[in-house]
């Protein structure tokens, strides 16, 4: 079958052809034409138009064409499902959707810059999505450290010796790392137990030491404060609804969000936002 879309692809018009060729129609022929020619050429070439407004295979709300193909062709391969938010994030400038989205975007934007020929670009893109697929299927949970022993020594040095040198004024390395971990995962459920496992620190020690390094706040208080701060930050962008914000800041539902928000700021999220945008 022939598939047709707009020229100068970046993400979705490379990722979707990859998905079509690998999972839907191995003999698919992909055609790139100027935007204004897509529909007329689709009719005369008997090709399926995709990733343009107004056709079946396209974006729906927050989801991109890749997502629609996964749904329509009932692709259940978990590796493809893991790739979808990466593609969606890179394609819709929502790099917060998956940690890998920013890197995929940078490499794809650079490839598009280097290859003017859309089919040459597609050839290279196929290799990239094959690689992403293999990673998602086999290597998602593998972490890479080049020289494990050196890294371990360095980590021990940082954890046990460095903090002593600057006691009082600076955070120890584990607290700094914990702070970053919390920042990175503020949209998901965070437990002290899990974090302490990741840091390889005894949870009761962590719980005891926590407030010393985090403005006298307990772990729970600190997390809630971070979530509220992040929510306020997101409120400045009118593109986010309050429901989305409560989801992006790790609250289980909007009423929970509203309750905690009011407790910390004395205002309902909607009132707070109104005042914020007025300024």
């Amino acid at each position, binding site marked *: 079958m022939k598939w047709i879309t707009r020229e100068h692809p*970046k*993400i*979705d018009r490379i990722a979707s052809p990859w998905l079509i060729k690998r999972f839907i129609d191995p003999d698919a022929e992909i055609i790139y034409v100027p*935007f204004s020619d897509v529909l007329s050429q689709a009719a005369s070439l008997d090709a399926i138009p995709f990733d*343009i*407004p*107004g056709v079946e295979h396209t*974006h729906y709300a927050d989801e*991109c064409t890749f997502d629609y193909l996964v749904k329509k062709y009932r692709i259940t391969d978990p590796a493809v499902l893991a790739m979808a938010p*990466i593609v969606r994030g*890179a*394609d*819709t*400038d929502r*790099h917060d959707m998956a*940690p*890998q*989205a*920013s*890197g*995929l*975007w*940078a*490499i*794809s*934007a*650079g*490839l*598009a*810059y*280097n290859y003017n020929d859309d089919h040459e670009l597609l050839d*290279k893109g196929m*290799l*990239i999505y*094959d*690689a*992403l*697929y*293999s*990673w*998602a299927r*086999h*290597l*998602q949970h*593998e*972490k*890479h*450290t*080049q*020289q494990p022993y*050196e*890294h371990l020594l*360095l980590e021990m040095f940082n954890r046990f010796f460095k903090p002593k040198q600057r006691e009082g004024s600076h955070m120890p390395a584990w607290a700094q790392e914990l702070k*970053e971990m919390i920042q*990175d995962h503020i949209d998901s459920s965070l437990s002290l137990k899990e974090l302490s496992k990741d840091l390889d620190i005894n949870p009761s020690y962590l719980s005891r030491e926590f407030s010393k390094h985090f403005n006298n706040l307990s772990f729970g208080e600190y997390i809630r404060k971070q979530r509220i701060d992040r929510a306020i930050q997101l409120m400045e962008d009118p593109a986010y609804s309050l429901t989305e914000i409560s989801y992006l800041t790790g609250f289980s539902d909007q009423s929970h969000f509203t309750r905690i928000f009011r407790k910390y700021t004395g205002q309902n999220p909607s009132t707070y936002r109104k005042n914020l945008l007025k300024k």
Partner: protein
Amino acid sequence: MKWITRERPKIDRIACPWLIKRFVDAEAVFLYVPKEEVFEQARVQEAIPYDIPGAEYSHYGEACTFDYVIRKHELSDPALQIIAIIVRGADTGRFDLAPQAAGLWAISAGLSHNYPDDHAQLEIGMKIYDALYSWARFARDERHSWDPDLLTYRKPK
């Protein structure tokens, strides 16, 4: 000049050859051998060993070999500084260093899995780092999003 390192590269042993070929020595030849043969082969073949503990071109503290090549050869292209942080983050599992590190790692790990031949992997890796360079240099502020209105908008003549 010949450069030699351990086989089965992932990040640093692909990124460094790219950096060396593009900015230090366009004629450079790269060899991948089993870890225990690197120094012996380096002597026999008169190659520079890199990215292996004990070599001059290696990790120092939190900096990886890519950082060292930049420092040693005084490469001042600002795009390289941006790539260096991404490479360091991907190479040392510190994805917090740069937002692009996790994606570079995923794609590189997948490539290594798909290409058992180190030189075939290097060939594609060169294209990936060429792309990262173009992005860092020319397209870093470019944003990409889906906006049907913008797409169907016609400039008034």
